[in-house]
């Protein structure tokens, strides 16, 4: 009987409401939400998301100061890739001692962003940029190469306009 009477008392509801009130107060008295430092929620599409410096995004090829591709086709990245998404075709370029990648194909739809390729590269020719919005409408858009109609390996993808630009 006593137990039944206790269930009628709204003590639990009052306790719950006090927690709600506490959190409401924190938001209500700080009307400008962007200034509140302890806000957990960020206004993501409007405000670009921040990522850590080591973030693993999309694979990107680098060029040196003269605008020459750093890759020398050692095929280390191709060999270490757990999902075999990189295909390189060796070639020659006039006035260049080292081999030159005629084709550097990257199939992004199967990439798992593990950064093994960057780790294996002895020439710092590739990095993973800070882009994470990589969705696309067509399957062809995921096939990246050094040239051609699709996206290329040197620029960040077009689709990720809200993610952090690589700098």
């Amino acid at each position: 009987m006593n137990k039944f009477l206790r269930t009628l008392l709204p003590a639990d509801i009052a306790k719950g409401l006090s927690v709600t009130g506490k959190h409401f107060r924190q938001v209500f008295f700080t009307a400008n939400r962007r200034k509140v430092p302890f806000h957990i929620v960020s206004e993501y599409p409007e405000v670009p998301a921040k990522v850590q410096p080591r973030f693993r995004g999309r694979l990107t090829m680098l060029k040196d100061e003269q605008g020459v591709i750093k890759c020398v086709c050692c095929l280390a990245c191709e060999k270490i890739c757990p999902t075999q998404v990189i295909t390189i075709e060796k070639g020659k370029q006039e006035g260049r001692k080292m081999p030159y990648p005629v084709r550097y194909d990257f199939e992004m739809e199967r990439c798992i962003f593990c950064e093994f390729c960057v780790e294996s590269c002895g020439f710092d020719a590739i990095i993973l940029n800070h882009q994470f919005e990589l969705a696309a409408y067509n399957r062809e858009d995921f096939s990246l190469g050094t040239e051609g109609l699709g996206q290329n390996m040197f620029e960040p993808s077009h689709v990720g306009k809200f993610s952090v630009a690589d700098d």
Partner: protein
Amino acid sequence: MFKNEEMEINLGPQHPSTHGVLRVKLRLDGETVTHCRPMIGYLHRGVEKICENQSFFQGQVWTDRMDYCSAVANNLGWAEANEKLLGITVPRRAQYIRTLLNEFNRIASHLIWLGTHAMDIGALTVFLYAFREREDVLDINEAFCGSRLTTTAFRIGGLREDLPPGFEKMVRKFLAKFSDCLEEYEALLTENRIWKKRTIGVARLSAEDAIALGVTGPMLRAAGVAYDIRKAFPYAAYAEMDFEIPTRTEADTYARYQVRMAEMRQSARIIQQCMDGMPEGPVMAKLPKILRSEVNEVYHATESPKGEIGYYLVGEKGSLNPYRFHVRAPGFINLQSLPKMAEGGLIADVVAAIGSLDIVLGEIDR
């Protein structure tokens, strides 16, 4: 007038209350479960077979994707099993950082369990609180290894890189507030009348049954058996850490909740000790250019948040990839205790039993 007949129903494969794609075949007499069989295999990817065709180095990415809630713990087991097989000693600083990240991962895994388990039973609020702190842990993961969930945190022989600048500040900030946060969760649940009614005495699994079924982890410790691989067979830097194994004797869902909450406190303690006693030195051992196995066969067990995760590797001497690879997944072994817990109980308690198992189907199906 009324036919007295048992009814067979499927809980799942995609019931919103079950995690992942688990199907439970139930036979009901009214609301009482008389027969319960979990059906698995909906997420099978053949991880073991894939790893046999890849080098020792490459295999790690698949361990991330087994138990995606505790990827770091899986990475640690894989890395240590391989080090045993290849005969590599890891530097002390790397061991400490591994321990630190592993404990952070335990906190993240237990928080996701707490949130989803409470949500299954009906306390939605805890989910939001638990995921708030999990976010911080994932940020720490991201700061260290660049990825939040599929971490690929370690390398065979040590770590890829040392701790990033500003890492210690992040950890200290987290530790300063975490015990308050735990109290916040407990304020919502421990004395909550509905929570107690839904969990106390529900889904009992006695110590004898648990041992007979091979159940490990918090499930076993909630039954009163103080078995923790971190203490029993210390690995990484756990031999130098001072921590307790929380146990309860009630062996019900509430006891499992208490054990996991106490474990999070112990994890915070271990992180504190790791941060204070972090030795200096290199983080990577000297490795040969090509990794070849030294011994023929190795089994290495570590304590993942779910229980004992063991890696069994057979590598013929001098081979580049494992000849045979097998994972003793804690979720897979723990799941077979579900019929024992659910049969004879009510259908609503099946959800509580599944929740208290803390299963991740990616690991069970592999």
